């Protein structure tokens, strides 16, 4: 019961944040609402017992990635987004496609995932077990992703490094 209540409360927070992300016109508000989404997702993870995932969700997503976003927004001083009608396609095809896809998915999930219920803390993802898994069975993917991150760092440095000479107007 408590589980259901908590789930629905934070689920609603989640959805609210997600929708707020869409309706807000200022990127910083979107960012903050996304942070809210992530925080409440962390709680959902806790409800599912994945405490370590929850912690990492907060530290990595909310604490690092989103900080990066906010930082960039501040750096570029991004303002209100102007309402240009760039692509009709996205409205004529994308939205229906998205709706159709999500409806189908929902239908499948609801019909095929059964009424199987998960109780609170169903699977305690204690750091120790996670580590066991991560460093034994998933060692290779782990190393590969570490290399990926390394490359990403270098790529970011290369991309963000100010090109010399600095071109005054990109429009030419």
């Amino acid at each position: 019961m408590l589980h259901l209540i908590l789930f629905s409360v934070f689920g609603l927070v989640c959805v609210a944040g997600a929708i707020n992300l869409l309706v807000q016109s200022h990127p910083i508000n979107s960012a903050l609402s996304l942070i809210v989404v992530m925080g409440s997702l962390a709680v959902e993870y806790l409800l599912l017992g994945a405490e370590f995932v929850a912690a990492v969700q907060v530290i990595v997503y909310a604490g690092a990635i989103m900080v990066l976003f906010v930082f960039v927004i501040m750096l570029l001083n991004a303002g209100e987004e102007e309402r240009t009608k760039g692509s009709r396609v996205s409205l004529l095809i994308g939205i229906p496609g998205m709706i159709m896809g999500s409806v189908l998915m929902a239908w499948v999930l609801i019909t095929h995932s059964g009424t199987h219920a998960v109780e609170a803390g169903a699977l305690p993802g204690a750091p120790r077990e996670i580590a066991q898994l991560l460093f034994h069975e998933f060692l290779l993917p782990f190393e590969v992703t570490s290399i990926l991150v390394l490359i990403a760092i270098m790529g970011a440095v290369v991309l963000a490094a100010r090109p010399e000479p600095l071109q005054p107007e990109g429009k030419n």
Partner: protein
Amino acid sequence: MVPLSYYLVLSGILFACGVTGFLIKRNIITIFMSIELMLNGVNLSFVAFAAQWHQLSGQVFVFFVMVVAAAEATVGLAIIIAVFRTRETLNVDQVNLLKL
């Protein structure tokens, strides 16, 4: 006791919101956030399934998703900065050329 489908539906909603954001937002940064939103939705479904099948590997996978998301955000934001330097706009509708 919450049915698994609830979690799945929640993750589906988040994912759909992400897609919609990608489709309707003009600001590159916001679009990026929508991508993160989709990833989060997927993560939730992973964890939920892990809880259902008692398979920790589902949770482990979430870490990989997070790492990839982090890398993607790093590079993506760097690209955004580069784009902003040359285009001086963050509006994707005005950024429709690979080369100026």
